């Protein structure tokens, strides 16, 4: 109630007039009443009433927050947080090595960034996650939907169909191997068409559309409350050309990151961003670093860097609050993102995935 007038979310002109008239706290305004206010500062009664309603709402919100109720800021003990984290689901990537170093998979309510050289598999992983987020709970998934914001035009529906078919087949095999009650019911609705219809795609052509889409994201997520994954494939691409004003770019990127963090927390969704690599010219040599500058490195909670080692694809966990830095190898098979299989000859224990490593991939290619 003692809140200063200057901090209230009123129109600037109105605030200036209130300050000029000598009002200092919100309580004073409320005591004056709409008629008195309109006479003192020379605005209409309706405008005064509107302003007072805003003030009342703000103050009510303040007191509620002060009493520890729900609001924009949350307050809880570390124990509650621990319990929450332990029951929280992860979005698995089907590559057990990657899931292990991430501590179970892609975490909900956190921003994960994937940087990598061209062609290394960033979009493949994103498409894999968009399918994996929909795995029913009885199979260990989070049973959510996915939003895919594509800025580079690399989203290929045919590839998603392949990945989804492999995932459905995998679940069928699990259900056969260890049948449980819910499996049958879950499998009825878990089909390729269903998976595809729960991936919401947006194609943003430049950074303005991307900004607009992120502003509208809370509204969209409120309508589609089952969304548990937001993928932005190519956050670097729209910001890397036509930007002379780097300060503006940093500000816009930080604003984006803030909004994504808020969205991730409010809707319990995982946010996955992909980034490009750029060459930084040093004195004696140049290095390949993630694009968008140093300050962007702070935006993501978890950072993965995908790179090549000759012909082997590697993933390095570069930044994480709870897991240690490590590197693993992975493969891109016709079924999607997978572990590196041991050489042919060792029997695969699950028998679910055909051994893709040594067999030429062309044989696995789906006939069109």
């Amino acid at each position: 109630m003692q809140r200063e007038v200057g901090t209230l979310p009123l129109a600037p002109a109105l605030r200036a007039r209130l300050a000029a008239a000598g009002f200092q706290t919100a309580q004073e305004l409320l005591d004056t009443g709409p008629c008195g206010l309109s006479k003192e500062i020379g605005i209409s009664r309706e405008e005064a009433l509107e302003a007072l309603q805003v003030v009342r709402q703000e103050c009510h919100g303040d007191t509620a927050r002060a009493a520890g109720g729900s609001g924009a800021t949350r307050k809880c003990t570390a124990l509650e947080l621990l319990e929450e984290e332990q029951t929280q689901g992860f979005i698995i990537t089907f590559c057990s090595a990657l899931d292990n170093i991430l501590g179970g998979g892609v975490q909900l309510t956190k921003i994960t960034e994937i940087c990598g050289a061209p062609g290394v598999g960033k979009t493949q992983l994103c498409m894999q996650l968009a399918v994996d987020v929909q795995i029913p709970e009885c199979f260990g998934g989070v049973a959510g939907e996915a939003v895919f914001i594509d800025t580079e035009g690399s989203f290929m529906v045919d590839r998603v169909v392949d990945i989804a078919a492999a995932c459905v087949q995998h679940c069928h095999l699990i259900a056969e191997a260890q049948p449980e009650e819910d499996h049958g019911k879950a499998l009825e609705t878990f089909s390729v068409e269903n998976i595809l219809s729960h991936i919401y795609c947006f194609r943003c052509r430049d950074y303005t559309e991307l900004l607009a889409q992120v502003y509208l994201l809370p509204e969209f997520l409120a309508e589609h409350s089952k969304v548990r994954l937001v993928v932005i494939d190519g956050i670097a691409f729209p910001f890397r050309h036509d930007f002379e004003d780097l300060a503006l770019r940093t500000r816009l990127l930080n604003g984006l990151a803030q909004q994504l963090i808020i969205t991730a927390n409010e809707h319990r969704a995982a946010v996955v961003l992909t980034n490009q690599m750029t060459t930084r010219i040093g004195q004696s040599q140049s290095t390949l670093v993630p694009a968008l500058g140093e300050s962007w490195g702070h935006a993501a909670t978890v950072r993965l860097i995908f790179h090549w080692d000759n012909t082997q694809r590697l993933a390095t966990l570069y930044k994480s609050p709870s897991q240690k830095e490590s590197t693993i190898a992975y493969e891109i098979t016709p079924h999607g993102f997978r572990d590196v299989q041991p050489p042919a000859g060792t029997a695969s224990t699950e028998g679910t995935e055909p051994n893709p490593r040594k067999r030429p991939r062309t044989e696995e290619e789906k006939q069109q």
Partner: protein
Amino acid sequence: MAAKKLRRAQLSQEMCERLSRYQITTCQDFLCLSLLELMKVTGQSYHEVQKLLCKVSRACAPKMQTAYEMKLRKSVNPSSAFLSTTLHSLDRVLHGGVPCGSLTEITSPPGCGKTQFCIMLSVLATLPVSMGGLDGAVIYIDTESAFSAERLIEIAANRFPAYYDSDEKLLCMTRSIHLYRELTCCSVLKRIMSLEEDIILKKVKLVIIDSVASVVRKEFDTKLQGNLAERSNFLNRGASVLKYLAEEFTIPVILTNQITTALSSGPGLRADLVSPADDLSLSEGSSVSGKRDSGYVTAALGNTWSHSVNTRLILQYHDLPTRQLLVAKSPVAPFSTFFYTIEKSGLILQGLLTFFKLWYSTVRISPDRKDQTNLVWEGTNPALQPIRVRNTALKDTLHDAALPSTTGETSRNTSNL
């Protein structure tokens, strides 16, 4: 929709006038401001400004479609999703051919067949749909003056003799290929920007730019300060316009690129990120394995450009007259390699027979398995993939372990045709 004017975003007239006093006329200007700045310029309260923000965002946000709708749309018209190259093995690996709606890049050393490939694809695009073409016109932007109309007719007449049986048909085909000669970066960019109208007017179904690298490398010297950033800017801008055109009209866009020498001590990577350049056993063409300060040949235009193209095909020398085609980057295909030669009718894929004479001299392979050269090789970073160039000691290359990973896989390549 960045340049969309605010009055079309359904803001009130007076609001638009007020904003234009602060030079805020487009959606882009509006969305770039922070909330406090917006409150200042609009004179509205916090909540009002948020509502305005949503209104403006709605005006320029993209439309939502589910993956299912995208798939349905594609399956309704499957033939329009690819341009078949009539190189059957390549088409199979690429799930149909050169994809429509994305950028495909063809990189090679000089004389390997880039322009030949482009000319061949131009012929294919003009064919009717029943023959695997796109039944449309072609826009060919030529920066090196390498396009030859005579060769165009030769390829058409020899590749499809049954279809092009009269001169009229050939001339009709040539009428639908529109050639633009652009010799500077600026004019290329201008031409790309104006393509939208041409595409609608002339019913264009294929855009070819041969080659991007030649104009860019002429004008930007990356050793000079600031040129690298300028070059990236130009390339990114061009790439985004081309992507927009490709997606909007669902047509393939083909670009050609040149090669450059990358020094292995040059773009060295950080210690924890291993550089493929350090292991020169991968660069088949380079004969200086072990020497750390030598270079290897790879695609030009740098790392950022490799991000922008969706598919990258590399043509390189194998031994005269055979050349090799590598699928180095593709969202739908694994790394694959094919052998081909350039004949009168364009590119022809080579069969196993020719190359495994050394290994299977007694095996007779039936002629209809001609183009089964679907060898798998273990590729690497498409931006750093070494490319073999023509070298003078051709005799030696014939007996090299030239074919990558040929262990065991070859016997399994009896894939059903």
